[in-house]
């Protein structure tokens, strides 16, 4: 066989990649700060195991845990093994598990301790030496957000923010700041040490299949895009309802509240994906440019306008799933007179050519009637009703509903004739469910996102300017609510659909969809 390859010296593309479902990931050392914490044990480490099981990790992959708890390497491996066995979505293969962890290291110490970083550097260099080349480095900060600036600065001071002939990336999880000012400060602190291309801000909602499918449905079908504008869409409702309370997270939730917990990040991301213009290509910056444009088109309210466009509330005692539950203020760790909202509803407008005049209603809450995350796009009524006759609910506006959880899928409601001699119409649903239409399970969002971070693909991560645009929308509402120390916070019965006050946000006869 003659190797008369027409590949030229200028070819740097790998011709073996074409046609492969799984794209190569370069050899990597993954450092998890907060490796003994809850998120690492329930989500990250099981996700990493599943990537290993499916052969998706890089050919050389090393894990280093960093934490404050005292552990030897061996103890750390035992703890990780236990977590993977408990939380992995599949039963671990003992050989894969052993292969994943037999070189895993643990660096113990406080995140402000310089020795942690020098020891980390030694471990990373040892992995590089063993591999005979510098491995890419990913620092995953699975810690409380107050440690982000400190860890980033210490990594920089130790020279771990750069590497010769290898990529270095840092991954952080929300919350990205507490308000616009703190988000700007955090961005500035991170950017003092890392380039923006090195920073991967995870919003795990973006790793969910349905969320990505929003773009596929909009931009891969001729059916939807022609009606995706103010001429045909009456309004949009985005709901993120939870039936659970705050559990043991009072410490976090008292400082966060519903607006920061879900609206500022997940729900506004959904809104951006739903309303953005088509990107010219599906790459990280072009996609994020479009999201940023539409976020900037959402005019933040003035403090005086907040009362008319935002509602907050707290859950009162009630019954959920047949079980009596306490109200928010009776939860352990919650202040008796807490003013932290467990429910938030907003009316927003996207001030651009496509969406002018279309209201976007967002609501989220804890201890609501059921767990449901959905986006409902409600179309306008037809202009002339020739078919309707009595004896049915009649023609109703079409709705396109994207369900993010619990059953990922899309349904389209259409008017159809009820069988019989008369022309009676009622809405029926055309349903698409992942479970019935695809053979494979949706991968865990963390699996996708960890892999993307190792590959350096930032498409599903949030950029610094996006973060600031997101806070820019929410900040005036937070400011108005924080300034109001006297008005009564509306209460809603646990297990209900939320406070009555939220109905006032909807006008022109519109109603919240039933949960």
């Amino acid at each position, binding site marked *: 066989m*003659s*190797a008369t390859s*027409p590949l030229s010296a200028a070819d*740097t593309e790998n011709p073996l990649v074409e*046609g492969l479902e799984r794209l190569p990931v370069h050899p990597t050392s993954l450092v998890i700060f907060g490796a003994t914490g809850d998120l690492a044990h329930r989500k990250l480490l099981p996700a990493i195991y599943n990537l290993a099981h*499916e052969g998706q990790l890089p050919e050389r992959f090393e894990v280093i845990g960093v934490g404050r708890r005292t552990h030897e390497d061996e103890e750390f491996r035992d703890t990780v093994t236990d977590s993977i066995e408990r939380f992995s979505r599949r039963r671990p293969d003992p*050989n894969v598990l052993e*292969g994943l962890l037999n070189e895993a290291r643990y660096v113990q110490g406080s995140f402000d301790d310089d020795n942690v970083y020098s020891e980390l550097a030694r471990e990373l260099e040892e992995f590089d030496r*063993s591999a005979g080349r510098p491995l890419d480095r990913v620092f995953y900060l699975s810690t409380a957000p107050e440690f982000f600036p400190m860890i980033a600065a210490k990594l920089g001071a130790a020279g771990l923010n750069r590497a010769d002939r290898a990529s270095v990336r840092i991954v952080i999880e929300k919350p990205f700041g507490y308000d616009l000012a703190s988000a700007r400060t955090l961005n500035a602190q991170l950017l003092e040490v890392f380039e923006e291309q090195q920073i991967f801000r995870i919003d795990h909602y973006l790793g969910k299949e349905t969320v990505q499918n929003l773009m596929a449905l909009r931009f891969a079908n001729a059916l939807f895009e022609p009606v995706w504008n103010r001429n045909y869409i009456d309004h949009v409702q985005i709901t993120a309802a939870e039936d659970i309370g705050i559990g043991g997270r009072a410490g976090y939730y008292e400082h966060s509240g519903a607006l920061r917990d879900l609206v500022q990040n997940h729900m506004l991301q959904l809104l951006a994906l739903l309303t953005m213009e088509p990107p010219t290509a599906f790459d990280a910056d072009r996609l994020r440019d479009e999201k940023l444009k539409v976020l900037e088109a959402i005019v933040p309210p003035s403090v005086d306008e907040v009362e008319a466009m935002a509602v907050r509330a707290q859950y009162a005692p009630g019954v959920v799933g047949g079980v009596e539950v306490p109200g928010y203020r009776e939860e352990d760790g919650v202040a008796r007179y807490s003013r932290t909202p467990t429910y938030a509803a907003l009316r927003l407008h996207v001030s651009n050519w496509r969406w002018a005049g279309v209201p976007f209603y967002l609501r989220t809450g804890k201890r609501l009637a059921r767990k449901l995350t959905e986006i409902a796009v409600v179309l306008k009524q037809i202009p002339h009703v020739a078919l309707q006759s009595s004896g049915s609910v009649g023609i109703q506006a079409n709705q396109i509903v994207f369900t993010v959880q619990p059953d990922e899928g899309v349904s389209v409601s259409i008017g159809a004739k009820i069988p019989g001699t008369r022309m009676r119409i009622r809405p029926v649903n055309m*349903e698409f469910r992942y479970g019935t239409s695809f053979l494979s399970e949706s991968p865990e969002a963390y699996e996708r996102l960890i892999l993307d971070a190792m590959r350096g693909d930032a498409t599903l991560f949030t950029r610094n300017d996006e973060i600031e645009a997101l806070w820019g929308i929410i900040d005036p509402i937070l400011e108005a609510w924080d300034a109001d120390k006297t008005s009564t916070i509306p209460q809603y019965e646990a297990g209900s659909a939320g406070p009555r006050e939220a109905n006032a946000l909807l006008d022109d006869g519109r109603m919240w969809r039933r949960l």
Partner: protein
Amino acid sequence: MSEDVWSAQDTNPDAIEAALRELLRERHAANEALAPARVINLIVIVDREWKGEIANRLERAGRYHGSRTVLCAVEEGRTTLDAVATVSYQEPKGAALGVMHESVEIDLGPSHLRALQTICDPVLVSELPTVLWSPHGHPEAVDAICPLVDVMLLDSDDIDDPSDAFARAERLRKHAYIVDLAWLRTTPWRERLAATFDLPERVDALRDIEELEIRHRETSMASALLLAGWLSSRLHWERSHLRLWDGRLAAGEPEGDGEVVVSLHTAEQEAPGLAGVTVVTGDGTALSLQRGEGGLDAVERDSDGEERGWKILGASRGEGGILGEGIRQALLRDSTYLPALKAAHGLCPA
């Protein structure tokens, strides 16, 4: 798993389809949270005496099943159709959605095969892609049913002479998209070779490959040839037929200038497929991947002769997993198979 079953002797396709429809209607009426899977139709043509074995293989395919599976069992001397239709499901919990899968087993005779299309067509879910798997041959049935089929599931390792297997795949691909299980057995190897050469400092070495050695189970020569064919087609090697060189089957001339020596070796192993791959480049660097427990064992020898070893993690899918992967691949399209197939065919011993 619960099942609703209907059966009949001396029946016909319309009656089978009506029975399935009724089973689905009754089950949905009993529990509205149950909905039928609507992904693919899978037609399987088997010898009746091996029906159980094939049913077991399908069972082991994991979560990848046909939404509606039509198993046609061919029995010598039979002149009538007997059928069993089954709707299987797991009752959903809470607000979750439950998925129903349908299967039909039709016992038929050799005389039915020429008109198999007229038996299967009414029983399929229209507008779903239809996949055909005929593991016991029955070429007349395959020809008859071709117009209904979007995807054919083949296993080039099933035929003793890889040249015949590749000729079959090349002929059938004119009628339908081909998913070749022998090709899928090479997937982890292709992914790992691609990853190895993806590093900027290594991508140039692709132009400098001098030796490719593939170790395979004796019955998996087609897989080995497809892997060689893939590299050959992706890297635009000019091919010559494999010949015996020093007791090994090889193409290319050792020490020949600009030559790539491709050699195939059989290896003892239980699982079908490949056992190992070694790639040697002009500067003497060699990368060897060998099937091991919990993944592939990799050994890299640099030009100074220094060796490094490591484990590339990944659990084996097993043969059941390969079949499941074949069913899943029926919904995808791999543009690199056909060039690899042609190159592999070109490598077959003359």
